[in-house]
């Protein structure tokens, strides 16, 4: 499988990265080379193999259902590019 210029633009949009025509053109052969290379996995017989999700066997733990946000709102907001009235501020979402 190889990707097209159109798909590269689509992926860039899904990944929310602005890309110029020049950039998607440069990326196209690079992505196809990497994708062509990883496709060798198709040679491996994986019928009946369970996908590995946890590399070391362990039970997921439960924790108490308590708020653990640190109660440091203002400290957290200090890093925000724009904070107003104790919230993160963003450009207008609704027209």
């Amino acid at each position, binding site marked *: 499988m190889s990707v097209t210029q159109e798909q590269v633009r689509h992926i860039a949009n*899904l990944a929310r990265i602005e890309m110029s025509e020049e950039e998607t053109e440069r990326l196209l052969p690079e992505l196809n080379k990497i994708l062509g290379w*990883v496709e060798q996995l198709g040679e491996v017989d994986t019928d009946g193999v369970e996908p590995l999700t946890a590399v070391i066997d362990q039970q997921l733990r439960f924790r108490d259902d308590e708020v653990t946000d640190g109660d440091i709102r203002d*400290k957290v907001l200090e890093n925000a590019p724009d904070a107003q009235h104790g919230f993160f501020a963003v*450009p207008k979402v609704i027209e």
Partner: protein
Amino acid sequence: MSLTDKTIAELRDGFRAGDFSAREIAEEFNAAVDAADALNAYLVKTPELALEAAEAADKARGSDSLKPLSGIPLGMKDLFATEGVLTSAGSKMLGNFLPPYESTVSANLKAAGAGMLGKLNMDEFAMGSSNETCAHGPVISPWRREGSNAAITPGGSSGGSASAVSARIAPGATGTDTGGSIRQPAAFTGICGIKPTYGRCSRWGIVSFASSLDQAGPMARTVRDCAIMLEAMCGFDPKDSTSLDVEVPQWEAGLSSDLKGKKVGIPREYRIDGTPGEINALWDQGVEWLRDAGAEPVEISLPHSKYALPTYYIIAPAEASSNLARYDGVRYGLREVVEGGGLHDMYKATRAEGFGDEVKRRIMIGTYVLSAGFYDAYFTKAQKVRALIKQDFRKAFEQCDMILTPTAPSAAFALGEKSDDPIAMYLNDVFAVPASLAGLPAMSVPGGVNGDGLPLGLHLIGNELDEQTVLNAGLAIEERAPSIELPKKWW
């Protein structure tokens, strides 16, 4: 002998014996750090934090309340969130991010008495094998080829840590390893580095790259120093859902280079065409050193080894694309606002501006392999092959106690030599990645130098939670390998 030439164990013991004060140690290292700007290893210097910890250590010595790392200043990879100290992950994206909290691993080191010399440069978001993807310029290795002044890479992504330890501007440093990022730079700079079993070190407060693979570990000059640091770094942490709730062994006390009764596995699939003769010769030498220490070499098979790298380059970018979705210009770091644009335009402009080429490439690959219609063909397939790779190791460890391989397929290369071809760069980690995919402890120890006078490393892989055997075999190699002459100071 200057204090900066001493190992962590020597500094600790000398400080405890009263040969020198913690303040003297910190001052000497602070001065050495300041004199080494040419290496570009430190992104942020924190001499005041090193001195503060030294003062506490000197006081503790008077009152007999010393901690394991009292008096030892360390370098911190810039991937660890450090409270109030700039943390950039080698990227423009995080801007002037000042974490309001401390990562568990760096907090553990602090609680053990260690001071911090500063934050160490690295490949952007730990994605790279040469430090050339760093937004703040690459780290330079203190090593040079004989008869050449060409700038050599310290490897990556923990290149700043490797360069700093080998240049004696930190006695030890933290690293992180997703697919070889501790071990390859350790090999390239003639030092030791160990990645413990996945889950030993908490990932909390480490800027995430690929969460099912990311593990922290120490980088230092000797095996003993790695054991000392690792003991302080590990431990159960309820804030990381994959943290292992197991006891931390006393690895330093358990060190023994007597390998009688142990079997060392030599995987036949790691004999890869095109590996330079000097790498294979060192590997053979390593087998002899372990035999001399009492171990019995056995040939083993890890049949899916050749698929490890392509598996990694699906899983790691997939997890990265998901993890790095958080950089949206809203909560921290960079924000690029488009005149007259909305929220989506801001996301896209911010991410275009903040991420470098390699990070974008991996986010794009990851987004693609996770996208509708391709998820099963790429991502699920890779997870299945990962299961087979894990199974290979499981079977191998029924026949042996440790596995020996080279750490990297070459010595360090010059900056710019491989940066044009992503796959050539990825191949650097061909020997390191399988152990990462299997979550196993693995270590690089220096084995000697190549024809150009550059260091080469040997790579030991252990069974789950058996860091001790890895460290012991590392010690056996360290005792037998020719001692590597320090790089001559040119910086």
